[in-house]
Every structure is written in structure tokens, then in C-alpha cells.
């Protein structure tokens, strides 16, 4: 029985990873028609180096993700601290307001952003994508930091105060050092959320200014080429590496 369960789990893992591995293998296949057996080659990766559109999109993706990380990380950590330290009227409402960016399908959020930004003159482009990505990443940052804060003993702060520390010193030398792993996890997570975000970026992109997922989508719709396999392989490998980084500091799904 236990063996059967393990085999089943193995099959599910095959289902989850096989398509990605096939795609990766094809990105190293010299044949444009994906002929088998695979004749190994790096030609599609070499082609990428000459594809200025994809390179520009890649730079945009990284820049947007870095800005998102800094802003969402800072604002989210501050909000999580407030939720942890203070009881106040409207707290419940503020916590409920974290759900729309996570729970509403991104298609709805994305189209709403498009028409609102267009209407108010904020416009589309990189700044609009940062606006959107930060909003999406904020709830995740707050949740991850709050999870870390749950393990924090407020008596530590009280002890520091009674020893004469100013409120700023308490935060600087007691709270933040304890929080650091949570903040790092949240920041990596925010980076991943932004780097992998497609829907919001798709609606806020303007021709010539887009991100990697948007460029990949546009290329797929024009017709598959092995070059898309190559860039997609790079994207998914970096994305998974980032998430493994997150798991060093944060446990998905609670206790194990």
C-alpha cells in the first residue's frame, strides 16, 4: 500500500515536471522541427544573444521586479508591523482589503488597471507595471512577514524599552534583526511574483515596452520557435531557483 502510494506520488511529479523537461530538452535540440533523437546544440541560446527585443524585455522584467521588491518589501513590512503591534479600529477591514489583489482573477484586476490608468492619465508602460506589480506583491509580503512575527516575543521589545532604548532603537536593534529572515523571504517572493507576472503586464504593456512573459506570449501567438523554448527555459529555471531561495526562509503551507 505504502509502495503504491509512493509510485502514485512519483507519477504526479512526472506529470508536473515532464512538460518542463521536454521544453528544456527541445531548447537544446539543433533541429528546428524538434526532430528526435535530440541533436544537442546551443544554437537557440546563441540566437537569443542577438535578439534585442527579448534582451530589452528581460532587462525590463528584472528592473521592474527589483523596484517592486524594494517598494513592496518596505511598505508591506511596515504594515505587517502595525498589524502585529497595535489593536485598532478597522484592522479587520484592512486585513480583508488584502484579499482583492490575491483572490480576484488577474484578468479583472488587469483590465480595471488598464482603463483606470488610461483614464486618469497615469498611462501604460513600465511605471504602470510597477504600480500594478507592487499592489499584487504587497499582500504576499504582509502575509509572509506576519507569519514570521507570530513567533516574535513582544517581551523582548518591552525588555529593550525598560533598559532605556528609544522606540527607534527597539525597532532597529530588536525587532528588525528578528524579522530579517521573514523580510528576505518576502522580498524574494515579491521578486518572483513580479518576475513571473504575465496578465497585469500584458494589459499595461505598450508596443516596444514589455516584459519577458509578455514577449514570450506574443511570440507564442505568432508561432512557436525553438528560441521561445530557450528563453522559457531560462525564465523557469531562474523562477524556480528564486522560490527555492524563498523556502530557505519561509515554509509554504505551515508546519511539516
Amino acid at each position, binding site marked *: 500500500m505504502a509502495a503504491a502510494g509512493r509510485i502514485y506520488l512519483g507519477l504526479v511529479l512526472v506529470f508536473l515536471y515532464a512538460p518542463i523537461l521536454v521544453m528544456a530538452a527541445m531548447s537544446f535540440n539543433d533541429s528546428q522541427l524538434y526532430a528526435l533523437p535530440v541533436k544537442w546544440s546551443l544554437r537557440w541560446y546563441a540566437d537569443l544573444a542577438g535578439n534585442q527585443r527579448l534582451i530589452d524585455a528581460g532587462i525590463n522584467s528584472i528592473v521592474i521586479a527589483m523596484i517592486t521588491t524594494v517598494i513592496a518589501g518596505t511598505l508591506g513590512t511596515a504594515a505587517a508591523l*502595525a498589524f502585529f503591534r497595535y489593536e485598532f479600529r478597522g484592522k479587520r477591514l484592512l486585513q480583508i482589503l488584502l484579499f482583492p489583489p490575491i483572490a*480576484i482573477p488577474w484578468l*479583472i484586476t488587469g483590465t*480595471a488597471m488598464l482603463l483606470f490608468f488610461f483614464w486618469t492619465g497615469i498611462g501604460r508602460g513600465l511605471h504602470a507595471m510597477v504600480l500594478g506589480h507592487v499592489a499584487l506583491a504587497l499582500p504576499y509580503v504582509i502575509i509572509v512577514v506576519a507569519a514570521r512575527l507570530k513567533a516574535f516575543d513582544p517581551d523582548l521589545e518591552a525588555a529593550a524599552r525598560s533598559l532605556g532604548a528609544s522606540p527607534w532603537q527597539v525597532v532597529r536593534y530588536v525587532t528588525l534583526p528578528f524579522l530579517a529572515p521573514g523580510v528576505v523571504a518576502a522580498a524574494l517572493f515579491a521578486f518572483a511574483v513580479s518576475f*513571473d507576472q504575465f496578465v497585469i503586464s500584458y494589459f499595461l504593456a505598450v508596443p516596444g515596452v514589455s516584459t519577458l512573459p509578455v514577449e514570450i506570449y506574443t511570440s507564442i501567438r505568432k508561432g512557436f520557435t525553438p528560441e521561445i523554448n530557450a528563453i522559457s527555459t531560462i525564465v523557469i529555471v531562474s523562477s524556480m531557483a528564486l522560490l527555492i531561495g524563498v523556502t530557505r526562509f519561509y515554509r509554504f503551507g505551515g508546519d511539516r
Partner: protein
Amino acid sequence: MAVSTTASGGAGRANSPTRAVVLLTGPAYVWLTIAVLLPLLAMFYFSFLTEAPIAGRVGELTLEQYREFLEHGFYTTLILRSLKLGATVAFFCFLLGFPCAYVLAKTIKGRWREALFLLVIIPFWSNALVRVFSWTMVLRGNGLLERSIDFVIPGAGSLGLMFTYPAVVIGLVHSYLPYMILTCYISLQAIDDDLIEAARSLGAKRLTILRRLILPLAMPGIVAGAVLIFVPVIGSFMEPRILGGRHGTFIGTIIEDQFTAVFNWPLGAALSFILLACVLVIFALFAPVLKRAA
């Protein structure tokens, strides 16, 4: 700013709590308001206009967009099609994911469990677009799947799975399966092993234990997983476009069209809003179970 009267400020805090709360939460919530809440309100407003009030045009208030929706059976059909897709994907995720969560939670222990759990969860948070795209490499005509089948049964012919409804379902199940495994795992883990042992020692059969004990106790996790899968699936458009081709028309792709191809923003807004209403009804219906699962 008013001085706070809440008692929870505690002794020894130099600043008034209200001021600190506003300073700490203010920036995050101003951001969320500008980037999410106001846009949703604006979309609601646009859905009552004759045309989008941009580039100098003036939209007048009307119910025409909603009438358009009600008068054309086309849109209702598409919404139903999307709801059916959501239910199908959630069902298959349960079918595949529940046993997997059970194995993880009850039969595998220690470091192995940790590692396997991560292997299951990591793809979910990684790039969704690329994962859907990777299926085209497997499903396309003369792709890996057809060749493997042809290898086992020579001359089996082509499956023709690419650009069909099943292809969309496969891609979406692949995208959201880890979600179901995660929520089921959490609720399965909370079940005391002694309880199962007790039932067994009292002579309950395996199937009886599953039906009378495990499934009911895991129900909050199953429902939470189903809802959290159903909702994004009914709003999906990229997956049907890539894997469904001509057969990939759903309410999501029609909404996308209104914004990126047809440029009928008020109709797009109305359709988005109707979809949002469906989402809210689902959340409201399942709120008690979701709360228990959280």
C-alpha cells in the same frame, strides 16, 4: 489627528498608536487604493457608459452594456462554458491531488516529506505562462505524447489533442494541481493518526475509514482548494488561447478581446464586472468553509 483612546497602546509607548498605525499602514493602503480599489470602481463606472470617456470623447450613462449581455445568449453561454471549465478543472485537481496529499501527509515522514512537498509546490509559484507553453511541446501534432503512443502502439494514429478543450483542461489542471495538494495536505495533516488507528482497530474497512472519517475531516481543505482553483480558472484567457486555439473561446478571452482587439471598453468592463459578481457570490457561499480552512 485625534488622540487615540484605545487602551491597547500599552505603557511606555512614546508615540500615540493611531499615529504609528497611520504611518505604518498608510503607504501600503494608499498604494492598494490607487492600483486596485479605484480601478475596480472605475471599471464599475465604465460598465454603465455608452463609450469610454477617453481621447476627448464623452460617455453617457446607460444600461446598454448589461442589456447587450442579457439579450445575446452568446455571453451567457460563454459564462456557463467558463463555469463548467472551472468545475472540470477543480474536479480533476481533486481526483489527482487528494491521494497525492494523503500519501504526503500520512505515509511519508521526515526529510523526504519536506523535499517532496517542495517539489510539488515549487512549480505552482513559478512561471505560469511558461508552464502552459511547455504543454504545446508535449501535445502538438507529432509531439512527444503522440510519438510515445506511436512507439507503444505503432500506427495508432494522431490524437489531435492540441487546440482542443481537453488540452485546455490538461494545461489548467497542471497549473493548479499543486494548490489542491497544498490545501488538502494541510487539512489531512491536522487529522490525528490515532483516530484512524482507533477506527481500524474497531474493525472499520479501509473504504469506510476514507468515507466516514478522512473525507469529512478533510472537507474544508478540499473545498478551499476547489474554490481557489475555480475562481482563477473562470477568469483564465492565456491558457485557452495557447492550448485551445479555435476551441479556446471562453468569457476570459472575450473580455481580453474587448480590451486589446475590439476596443469596446464599456462592454469589456460590464463583462468583467459580471464575472467579478460570479466570483464574489462563490466566495460568499463558501466563506464559512474557507474560514475554517484558513
